[in-house]
């Protein structure tokens, strides 16, 4: 399935939404190429995610009817690779003169660093000096690149796209998808996107795909999903990238707790990583991240948080052998509901076990630890409730169980009610006997 981001990517520079200044600068630069060698052989498009850099680069190539060669984060940008792929394209071109006109697009340039990509920048610098072709470099944060490198390029800034423009694009997509969307709904998506058109389109797709209508009735769902929309973006950024930096930044940029992101990742990992080996590797990192989380909670050692974050983001991102293209409909972690349920149940069972011990009223009823009571006595009481109401009623009376505790054991309201009523009778009878001074004695197995 094609993502809407791909499906509606602008074909021409004119169609690119927002950033008119940047677009104008690009058009001027291309003209320079047409007139001969420009002052700068490479342009560096920089700005926040979803501001139109990649779209502008491809639209530009299309406008000129140029072919393009692209390298992105998934390719190893070492000196060798750059020399081999980009070098050949820039110096020799193809045999077909029409196809000789090429734009070289390099995405995520600010991700070039480290020992593995050693020499990558140097090779790129050399390439910029020699190239016969326009080179478009794309980066989120150009200030990570060395100044002498930046100086070789024409820097073009892309800013966050304003909400009105985002809204206009969303409306256009709805029109072409044949979706009747209320303006208010689209406005909420636009506001949520914080100027990131890509995430706005992804959000729209997540909510509207397969629907004919998107109305205010869905707004409740939408506002509830405020957090989810943000987290969808975080998930995309971790699960779709193979860049260690991008994955880590996704967590830092997200306003969510790492713990919450971890649970979202666990829920959605198998939807994204379809190769079992990728899945096993990624889950291993989530598991390790959870171990650090446990240590943080137990020791209050927040210094360990960075390991948790690195493993759950970069660990998971790099666990895949290749990217999984296409749009994934992420889902709300069932684990949250399960935790609430498990916690509720465990708390009630804990409370019940404590009551069965009876130590609070200084009169021990069952002499065993809570663990043993939960393992042995409570399951037995459950069986009594279900299969022997008479014995169950006696137990309920002696253990002074309340209706809700009987319900927890019997698992059935009506049955619990009956047992409770019978237990009350037994209690009354015992009180009468006690009033007469008639006490039950410990039963000895050895007397007959």
């Amino acid at each position: 399935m094609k993502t809407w981001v791909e499906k509606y990517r602008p074909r021409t520079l004119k169609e690119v939404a927002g950033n008119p200044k940047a677009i104008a600068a690009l058009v001027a630069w291309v003209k320079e190429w047409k007139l001969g060698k420009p002052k700068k052989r490479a342009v560096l498009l920089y700005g926040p995610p979803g501001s139109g850099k990649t779209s502008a680069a491809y639209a530009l190539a299309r406008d000129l009817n140029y072919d393009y060669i692209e390298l992105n984060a998934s390719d190893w940008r070492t000196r060798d690779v750059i020399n081999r792929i980009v070098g050949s394209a820039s110096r020799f071109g193809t045999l077909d003169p029409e196809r000789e006109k090429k734009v070289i697009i390099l995405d995520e340039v600010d991700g070039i660093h480290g020992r593995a990509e050693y020499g990558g920048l140097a090779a790129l610098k050399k390439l910029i000096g020699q190239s016969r072709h326009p080179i478009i470099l794309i980066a989120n944060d150009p200030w990570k690149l060395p100044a002498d490198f930046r100086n070789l390029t024409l820097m073009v800034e892309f800013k966050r796209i304003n909400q009105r423009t985002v809204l206009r694009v969303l409306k256009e997509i709805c029109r072409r998808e044949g979706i009747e969307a209320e303006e208010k709904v689209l406005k909420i998506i636009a506001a949520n996107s914080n100027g990131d058109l890509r995430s706005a389109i992804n959000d729209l797709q997540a909510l509207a795909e397969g629907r004919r209508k998107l109305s205010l009735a869905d707004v409740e769902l939408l506002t509830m999903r405020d957090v989810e929309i943000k987290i969808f973006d975080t998930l995309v950024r971790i699960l779709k990238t193979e860049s260690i930096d991008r994955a880590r930044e996704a967590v830092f940029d997200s306003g969510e707790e790492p713990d919450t992101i971890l649970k979202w990742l666990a829920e959605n990992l198998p939807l994204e990583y379809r190769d079992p080996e990728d899945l096993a590797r990624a889950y291993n990192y989530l598991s390790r991240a959870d171990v650090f989380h446990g240590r943080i909670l137990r020791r209050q050692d927040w210094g360990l948080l960075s390991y948790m974050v690195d493993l759950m983001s970069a660990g998971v991102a790099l666990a895949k052998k290749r990217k999984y293209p296409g749009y994934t409909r992420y889902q709300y972690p069932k684990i949250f509901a399960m935790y609430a349920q498990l916690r509720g149940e465990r708390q009630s069972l804990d409370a019940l076990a404590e009551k069965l011990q009876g130590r609070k009223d200084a009169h021990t009823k069952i002499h065993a630890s809570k663990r043993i009571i939960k393992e042995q006595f409570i399951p037995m009481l459950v069986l009594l409730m279900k299969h022997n109401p008479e014995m169950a009623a006696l137990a309920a009376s002696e253990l002074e169980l309340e209706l809700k505790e009987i319900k927890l054991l019997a698992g059935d309201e009506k049955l619990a009610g009956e047992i409770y009523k019978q237990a009350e009778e037994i209690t009354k009878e015992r009180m009468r006997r006690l009033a007469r001074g008639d006490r039950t004695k410990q039963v000895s197995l050895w007397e007959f």
Partner: protein
Amino acid sequence: MIEAVWVEKYRPSKLDEMVGQREVVERLKGYVASRNMPNLLFAGPPGTGKTTAALALAREFFGKNWKANFLELNASDERGIDVVRGKIKNFARTQAIGGDFKIIFLDEADALTKDAQHALRRTMEMYTSTCRFILSCNYSSKIIEPIQSRCALFRFRPLNDEDITQVVRRIAMKEGLDLTKDGLEAILYVAEGDLRKAINLLQSAAAFGKEIDAELVYRIVGKARPQEVREMLSIAMKGDFLKAREKLRELMITYGMSGEDVVAQMHRETFNLDIPDRQKVELVDIIGEYDFRIKEGASELIQLEALLAQFVARGGGENSV
């Protein structure tokens, strides 16, 4: 006294009525005769009479005042040594009624960390004149030396089949049950020398009717549903992670299994999988690692899902790429 719970109803109130542990009982009776006792350390597996011995000892020392002079605590229940110390302090403040000292019974003392045990040792020292401690544990080696050296050690052995048979038969008779020979054998087999387990099992079975045979006993024990865990594993080995995960969630929510239960059963069921033995060993290694991670980590659900993913990757089912 709780009649509806047979373990309590038939718990012996006199040392002489205890089954097994003859040697222990004789030594404890010696203390009663001399009206004094040191601190005691009861070591032995569950269901062998440690709590019963402590309760019976208190009754024999103090007669009908025993409850006022006896404090029962469980180290694994009370959160932290501070709670334990607080309760002990409160209890030890007042004079014993009709005796020279009070008895504090601290069950599962081996659940305390080393640091907590050192704190406990200081507390024991503080109240030597007014209190005697009985500590119980499964393994005496988990109790720090300084405490061991201040206590008389009593080892409780697993009860043998004759001992358990005696008790179970008598209870069955008193309760008017028809306990078949194979029913008794099934109880002995499952209880493994744990009398509490045997009695609870008998009563659980009695919930269904008067006749108790092996089939009923095994049906009750089988409640943990090994076949469900087996099914989950076989789905995982076929490569369908999402379906296996659904099964896992069902086990935990619908059947209320704890993470530990699931891992323990996965371990057991691994040997029944239709895979080469070498791979079984590998999987056991992985299960062990995740068992450890569950204890170290924050979310057992995430750990269990991650463990399942390891099974899927090693299963090489039709969905694998």
